[in-house]
């Protein structure tokens, strides 16, 4: 399915905290073809002197009663100018939305459980992935870490879906005190090799740590990386990640088209 560029309207802007919001965009046609793990490149029409779009995982795909995709949302965290504009966006604003783009998560093999590991805004690809996994009857866990309990979002959604939740916070205000790798490492101990498909999205040091833990426990692991990206279509070679297939020579590949989802064991971490 070729990507579409939709001149989307902001349908809703729901603040989740001082830094996070969920922005709903009238890009149902993009949502209809999105597979969990894929992303969109967005640019608010209100931006004037910044040029490039920014990559966002498709967060929710919203559907009408007949099941037709009517909109998508993105999970946004204020960090720079574009994310500030997306935080401040008002209903009716226009946001150019190009997608779906990139390589999606691979479904688990027969008999495998699925464990999703999210750090902060890295929750973004797991709404669609959880929907897909649960619909396929796969036992699914979300190990989800944030700075504090106030930044753990959508817990009700995952609970209602029947996803097992394991929470961590850096300040200990909710769940386990510390990072997601603590419960991941502990709970993977003693499990049969190749029995759990681990999916991770979050800050790169977390992805590296998760990939190492999964490998040590002989579990497959896919990570979704975020690199500074120019175009999202493979044109600019900005967003490269170093990968090594087997014993081959490590080389840079474009995370927009070879990723953003990679086999965690193949990434050569900086």
């Amino acid at each position, binding site marked *: 399915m070729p990507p579409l560029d939709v001149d989307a309207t902001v349908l809703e802007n729901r603040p989740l905290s001082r830094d996070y919001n969920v922005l709903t965009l009238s890009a149902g046609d993009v949502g209809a073809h999105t597979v969990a793990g894929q992303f969109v490149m967005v640019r608010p029409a209100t931006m004037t*002197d*910044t040029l*490039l779009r920014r990559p966002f995982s498709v967060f929710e795909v919203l559907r009408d009663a007949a099941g037709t995709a009517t909109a998508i949302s993105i999970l946004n965290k204020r960090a720079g100018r574009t994310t500030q504009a997306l935080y401040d966006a008002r209903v009716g604003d226009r946001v150019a939305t190009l997608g779906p783009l990139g390589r999606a998560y691979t479904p688990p093999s027969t008999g495998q459980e699925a464990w999703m590991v999210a750090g902060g805004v890295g929750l973004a690809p797991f709404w669609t992935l959880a929907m897909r996994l649960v619909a396929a009857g796969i036992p699914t866990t979300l190990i989800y870490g944030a700075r504090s309990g106030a930044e753990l979002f959508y817990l009700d959604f995952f609970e209602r879906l029947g996803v097992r939740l394991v929470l961590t916070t850096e300040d200990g205000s909710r769940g386990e005190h510390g990072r997601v790798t603590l419960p991941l490492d502990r709970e993977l101990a003693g499990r049969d090799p190749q029995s759990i498909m681990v999916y991770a999205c979050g800050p790169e040091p977390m992805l590296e740590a998760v990939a190492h833990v999964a490998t040590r426990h002989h579990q497959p692991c896919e990570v979704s990386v975020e690199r*500074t990206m*120019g175009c999202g279509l*493979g*044109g600019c*070679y900005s967003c490269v990640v170093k990968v090594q297939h087997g014993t081959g020579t490590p080389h*840079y590949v474009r995370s927009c*088209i070879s990723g953003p989802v990679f086999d965690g064991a193949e990434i050569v971490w900086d």
Partner: protein
Amino acid sequence: MARDLSVRIGTLELPNPLISASGCFGYGLEYEDVTDLSALGGVCVKGLFLTEREGHAPPRIVETPAGMINAIGLQGIGVHRFVKEKLPLLRERGARVFVNVCGTTIDEYAEVTRILTDAGGVAAIELNISCPNIKEGGIQFGCSLLGTGQVVEAVRKVTHLPVIPKLTPNVTDVASFARAAEDAGADAVSLVNTFLALAIDVETRRPTITNVLGGLSGPAIRPIAVRMVWECAREVKIPIIGMGGITNARDALEFILAGATAVQIGTANFVDPFVWGKVLDGIDDYMARHQVERLSDLIGAFDPTPPKVVHR
């Protein structure tokens, strides 16, 4: 009557003046889902050396006001893999393939060009003597009148294809480089490559990209690029391919009026991969409004008479 947007670069006729800028369109095939490659005037692919290159460690780009700075470092698959893996597909798609040829030595430019010429199906050779981001080769030729002439002469000897050196703006007098290229037998020149630039992260006091320096592109550079195209157009008779921050038809027309026969679009394609049709439609609209039947009649039609004072 249908308006005629075709243009000629030496012996090469293009159906319209829009060419993808090298380094901004991958090897073209990345965009085949969103763009009919045969509908572009030309597809200029990413720079090629004899061998594969890894490029610089990321981060490779940083956004700046109305532009971006890049130092990709010419990551690429090399000419042999290009001929084997990409060129047949580009031919099949009906693309007019411009190949951006790189070299660390004059011999390498000639050898890459010879391989591409023998392969068949290449429309033109653009010589990258202007990449600001690699240590060896390239710009050492592009910043010297003698070097520019030597690379063009060497390549001229091994190909019948149009030879188009791509000029750097990082010189005092770009028109003298266009002259050197013409004298050495170039069929056209393309300009501008990016402007050498630096963006500092004031919080960390460190560079924003790994290579420290990079090349500035985007609308921020457009007026300087238009000026340089105009200077070259007054200096040489060979066609000029203009580029630098073109995002719409009006921008493209500025270059054409300044003397460009064709234009390349780079950074704007990152923002909007559907930019090509929009620019073409806009040029066609302009021609209709101004009752121009042939685009070639607009090349160099800039009138430097001072503007009238507008009373409001």
